[in-house]
């Protein structure tokens, strides 16, 4: 056990810091996805290897060998300096690794570079109203007619659908095959006639997601990744690439610190909330849980770097992390009492109203991306080797 990074990585860290000191103020703050500032910053990051670091040069990346600690150091230093780490989004985080793994050479050359540079923005079309936990039962259909797929159906939970140039999506192309074998992975332009995007307002009051409707949408036959009927495998090829961001313990620690500030600062009848022992005990309970999740994260990181088994440790992050965050935001709402109800343009909003909003948003995350119920199925079956539920009699 050695929690230091060692001289090689400390040198790398200094290099990142120097970059940030020199260029950090060129980073856009709160600029739009499409702004010239954002795109320029993204190009500069790629050039220095702080974005698209491990993507091969021939596809527009920086071409470094994968190194988990370097990535971590970059993330840490950018966070410390509060400087944008460049563009994110599902195109960069999901489609690029998918194409690298499963795309044709032509697809790689056509899409990866522009996506990395932010010139192409993508959205993801997986979930449907009738296919959530049971994603493989999706029914949006694509029928081959001459040189086109004709797509009909509906997707939901599509973020950035209004902004996206393209969508990568799962559609049913072989209606008679078993459900996992009848799916294909298509790429389609969002300006194709027949696509309608409707914002999906959620309980926080914002439209963090959209619904997308397809009516006879014509997609060229070659805009498929992998073979017909292989879409499920294509989509799952990159499941491991998703960052375990849903329960990120560093973000949780930042929120815990903000909550501690809140409890020191706010008062009831002049007495700081921190002096209220029942609240303080709840806070300390959360601090213990945050500590545990941070240690868990350290273990996962270390296992990635050094090898070692942290499967179960990784498997529980989403379940525990979203729950913890929901509880933490909920304590903040509680200690504020009536002030915890303030919303929108309320002048008494504390911390921009983030506590109440995040309390709800994290309930959404408990549900989304595999509900807690599904997570528990996975942990018990894959993590603990417990028997699957027996097959149900039909009819």
């Amino acid at each position, binding site marked *: 056990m050695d929690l230091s990074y060692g001289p090689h990585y400390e040198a790398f860290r200094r290099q990142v810091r120097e970059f940030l000191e020199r260029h950090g103020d060129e980073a856009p703050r709160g600029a739009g996805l499409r702004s010239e500032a954002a795109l320029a910053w993204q190009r500069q990051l790629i050039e220095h290897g702080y974005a698209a670091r491990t993507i091969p040069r021939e596809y527009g990346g920086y071409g470094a060998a994968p190194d988990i600690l370097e990535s971590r150091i970059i993330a840490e230093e950018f966070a410390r300096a509060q400087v944008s780490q460049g563009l994110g989004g599902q195109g960069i985080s999901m489609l690029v690794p998918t194409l690298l793994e499963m795309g044709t050479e032509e697809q790689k050359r056509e899409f990866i570079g522009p996506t990395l540079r932010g010139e192409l923005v993508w959205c993801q079309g997986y979930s449907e109203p009738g296919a959530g936990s049971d994603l493989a*039962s999706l029914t949006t259909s694509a029928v081959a007619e001459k040189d086109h797929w004709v797509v009909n159906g509906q997707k939901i939970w599509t973020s950035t659908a209004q902004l996206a140039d393209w969508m990568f999506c799962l559609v049913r192309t072989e209606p008679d095959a078993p459900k996992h074998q009848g799916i294909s992975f298509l790429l389609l332009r969002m300006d194709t006639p027949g696509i309608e995007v409707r914002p*999906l307002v959620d309980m926080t009051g914002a439209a963090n997601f959209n619904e997308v409707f397809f009516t006879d949408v014509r997609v060229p036959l070659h805009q498929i990744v992998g073979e017909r009927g292989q879409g499920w495998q294509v989509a799952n090829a990159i499941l491991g690439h998703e960052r375990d961001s849903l329960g990120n313990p560093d973000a949780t620690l930042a929120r815990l610190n903000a909550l501690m500030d809140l409890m020191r600062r706010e008062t009831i009848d002049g007495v700081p909330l921190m002096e209220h022992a029942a609240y303080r005990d709840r806070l300390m309970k959360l601090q213990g849980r945050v500590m545990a999740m941070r240690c868990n994260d350290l273990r996962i990181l270390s296992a990635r770097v050094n090898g070692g088994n942290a499967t179960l440790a990784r498997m529980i992050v989403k379940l525990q992390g979203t729950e913890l965050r929901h509880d933490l935001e909920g304590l903040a709402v*509680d200690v504020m009492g009536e002030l915890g109800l303030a919303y929108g343009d309320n002048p008494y909003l504390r911390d921009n109203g983030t506590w109440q909003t995040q309390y709800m948003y994290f309930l959404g995350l408990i549900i989304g991306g595999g509900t807690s119920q599904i997570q528990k199925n996975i942990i018990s079956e894959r993590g603990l080797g417990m028997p699957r539920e027996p097959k149900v009699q039909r009819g």
Partner: protein
Amino acid sequence: MDFGLSQEQVLLQDSVRRFLADQVPLDRVRRFAEDGDDADIHEGLTGLGITGLLVPEAAGGVGLSALETALVAEALGYYAAPAPFLGTAVAAPLALARAGGHDDLLAAIAAGQARVGLALGEAVGARADAGVRAEAGRLYGKCLFVTDHPADHYLLADRERRLYLLPADLAGLGSRHLTTIDRTRPTGELELDGVAAEPISDDPALLSAVLDISRVMLAADTLGAAQSMLDQAVAYAHERKQFNRPIGSFQAVKHMCAEMAAEIEPCRAMVWYAAHALDHLPDEAHLTACHTKAHLAEVGKFVARTATEVHGGMGFTDLLGLHYWFKRIGYNRQMLGAPELLRHEAARAQSLTA
């Protein structure tokens, strides 16, 4: 020995439920959230006698008890119905009837012609930006999170726990809307810049009585809202299919619903008892009110979260409107005393601590 509702009480609640089911479906709630206009609902409830439930018969009201009022509150919660209620139909009638000499306003309340906002922030625990002090017959300061806003009158407590009735047009009295998560409960703040006012009563127990009944009504509202969320979750679990089965046939979903039912069911009796105690068991009323609001706040929080989870992604969206109930339960939880504060008050009421 009869710990249950009378025929009349059941009929009263049914009539309110029927009215709300007809006139305040989710679309009507959504419309209110946009335009803040509840005139038709207020009128309908007035027609059913709801605004006058606690107004003495001599002043033109129905002169019923806290239990009937709690049954109405439960129905309002069940339908997440916007309506002037907590200040107008609960706190003001109780306070004004006890203080005496306000028959005109009481009659106007019963007739649906007056709204009274409840402004007790000071009594529950003033936050940094708030505080109302009285100096030589004048009031200064701010009271946040006032119910039934905008109103014609406000029932306000100052730092010394004295109650005032302030007509909205008094010189020096300003008010404005405060946005909260719960768009079914219009809320505001009062600014007092030397408002001339005298307390309505010198009875030190009056504020406590107003707080007790208001807290029980918030608990009753949560009971109704939680029951509605459970009912919606059970219905959705029947309907929604995943893996070729209604999700309601999965043990995990069934158990979530069973746990909600197991938590809610005793709350029903608790709310009845707490409301009954307000009128008939003076020794128990305060303690029961504190515990009932605190306990319902905890159960409500659990149900709001769990019912949303049963609905999966749909529960998180605005599409089914489930969040109106979620937020209503959240509002009830924080208003007039969050659970930890109430439990502390309960302990003090039993002299368990200073």
